[in-house]
């Protein structure tokens, strides 16, 4: 069985003014089905950059990113979008919900995009899984940060993806709410055997994952327990 995610010798640099900043240099990563991997590292070390490569929202300068055996650099934009909507769920630090859609509409959106007909029902079920069925018709502006992030988690999970990419999902939340949200995320991933790449500052959260990696000088190294 091939890994759900495989990164080989990925490099990424940005032009900042006159000089080039190398953010990732020859990074390797493999994540198996159902595996939870935490990525740690100081601010500005390139964690978010790595996630955007994994999501296919940006492309590496060199090296390859494979999702479920598909090399993202070898497919066109339509196929990339398709891969993203079928295999991936993304949870952002800032939730990025649609302001003018209700909670249930937000959750159903990925299904609507691919043209699923029973999106409303499935969205309701997903919302129930994160314990927010009573908030279905509320707009994001009417909900707390923790509730918004739970809606975002439901949205990432509604398509039953193989891999969730989460960028500091509790970073904008207080300790207690953050823990609640993370519990939900961990439980649902386990329940549906979904792999998880979790970017975090928090060692405790990292310890709840199967593996912890440290992003340092553009590459990942294993963190001993």
């Amino acid at each position, binding site marked *: 069985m091939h890994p759900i995610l495989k990164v080989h010798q990925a490099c990424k640099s940005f032009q900042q003014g006159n000089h080039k900043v190398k953010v990732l240099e020859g990074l390797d990563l493999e994540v198996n089905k159902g595996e939870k991997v935490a990525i740690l590292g100081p601010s500005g070390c390139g964690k978010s950059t790595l996630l955007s490569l994994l999501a296919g929202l940006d492309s590496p300068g060199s090296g390859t990113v494979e999702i479920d055996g598909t090399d993202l650099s070898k497919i066109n934009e339509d196929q990339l979008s398709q891969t993203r909507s079928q295999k991936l769920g993304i949870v952002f630090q800032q939730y*990025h919900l649609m302001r003018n859609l209700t909670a249930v509409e937000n959750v159903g959106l990925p299904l609507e995009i691919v043209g699923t007909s029973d999106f409303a029902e499935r969205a309701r079920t997903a919302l129930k899984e994160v314990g927010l069925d009573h908030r279905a018709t509320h707009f994001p502006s009417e909900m707390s940060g923790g509730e918004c992030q739970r809606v975002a988690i439901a949205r990432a999970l509604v398509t039953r993806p193989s891999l969730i990419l989460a960028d500091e999902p509790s970073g904008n939340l207080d300790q207690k709410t953050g823990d609640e949200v993370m519990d939900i995320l961990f439980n649902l991933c386990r329940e549906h055997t979904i792999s998880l790449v979790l970017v975090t500052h928090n060692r405790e959260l990292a310890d709840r994952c199967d593996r912890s990696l440290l992003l340092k000088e553009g590459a990942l190294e294993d963190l001993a327990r």
Partner: protein
Amino acid sequence: MSFILRQAWREMRNSRSFCFFYSLNLALGLIGFVVVDAFRESIESKVRNESKELLGADLAIRARRVITEEEIKQARNTLPVETREAKAVDFFSMAAGPTGRSRLVKVVAIDPGFPFHGTFKLEKGGEKSGNEIKLFHEDRLAWIYPEARAQLGIKMGEKLQLGEAKFRIADLIEEETGLTFQPTDLAPKVFISRKFLDHTNLLGEGSLAYHTHLFQLPQGIDTDTFGRGLEKALNSPEVRTYTHRQAGHRAGRLLRYLSDFLSLVSLVALFLACLGSGFLFHGFLTHRMPELATLVSLGATRRTALRIFLLQLFLLGIFAALPATLACSLLLPGLGGMISEMTGSKVEVWVSSRSILLTFAVAMGSGWLLALPALSKVRRLRPAELFQEAVRPGSKPSRMNLLLALPGLLAFWGLCLAQAHSDKLANVFFGCFLGSLILLYILARFGFGLGEKLFGKSRLSIRLAARSLARNRAGALTGFLAIGLGVLLITLIPQTHHGLGKEIGLDDPTGDLPSLFLFDLQEEQLNAVQSLLEKEGTPLANITPWIRGKIKTLKGMAYEKSQRQEEELNNPDEQRRNAFRNRSFNLSYREKLLGK
């Protein structure tokens, strides 16, 4: 598709104020556009009708001799089968009243049906079209102008001697249309039916008379094309072809100037409205970029995102065009009445289906064209920025953005060409418009940059204002362009008003342009008329003698002689032409020319 529709609708539902102002802005521009377009069209149809009335037909051929059967056949061959025809003959002759007093009159002998366009306004019979005067052709009747009545000392019902026949005066003419080739005639007209023309025995071999053959084409046929075809088929210098357009050329010129001017003004108004709406859309789109990025991160393609916006613009265009055409349909009849009241001539203004179609096309097309620069942002969207904490996802800046305004400008040029009567005017207008646009743009770009440097050490509020102008370039530029163009337009209005006024002689400061003309004053009447008018406070100005002459010698040789000589030299065709050469001419003089 259904997702795109749903999403487009949701977004519009939640951005009501944007939708409202976008549509309102566009609708206002469109209303101006439709009103002027409708006004222009009704003026054009008015001019068309009036010029048809001047000629009395759509097409006519006219010669100073009898038009041969052969030529008429040739003409018929070029025209559609349903074409109606009528003949008319006009010539000068002496006519005598019952007292034996005789005067020069212009006899016009007409066929039933004449005129095809326009009417006779008769003192007794009222207004009659060509089809309503059948009785006139049944008997030896004549309609005369009141002048002839006075000159001949003849009363209604009495007989007028024309050559060897007598015609009973059946009515007096107040106004008549058709065959109006010259603005004035030397002698009052006398109309008779052509059926009885032979009875007069006035036209014999070599008599001088104009023969006109009038044609009425089936409805909705382009007269100009057939006119040209006719001219080509006849190919004779003696037989001239007239289209109603030529006849009405002068009458329509001024109205066309006016409508051209209004059209172009309305186009600028439309442009400004589009600029406003385009700017609103730009803001709306910029605001939406993070959500677009989110949509892409959820598995939508950029194409889907783009389609959502195109659909929204389409719907908004409809929202703008619907109330605009509705408002115009309600307002225009009233406007027509107002114009009629002001100008004293009946102008009906209505919204044609062409106008409505054009409005919708412009509303939706302009949305897309103006949004092009904004929409190109969607193509350059960077959803990776969703992961960045501090930045709102946007798109890579691009220098090519300005180029994307090009299709919009080209479309505007096309509209200018379509709306103005003359291509030259449209091009000059567009050139000036583009020139000022570029000038204003350059001014703004450098002005704002300079302002930032200049006011860098000023008071905080000024410094911040200058900086904000320099940094929020899109907004500042749009605002500046809109105001600048508006000001240019406002200065253009009095300019054109002045030009038009000069052309019509409206605001002639010396007031020495005549508004009334008196013709055919005889020498012995002059003094009496002059002193009478002087007493009335409106003295006669510019009394000009007018003498009709006849060529007697040509290059020092008696005219008949020079003719005979040519006969020996040239081919029969030229001989014939020579025989019909116009020997008469009008002579006039004046001591000095007027300024106008």
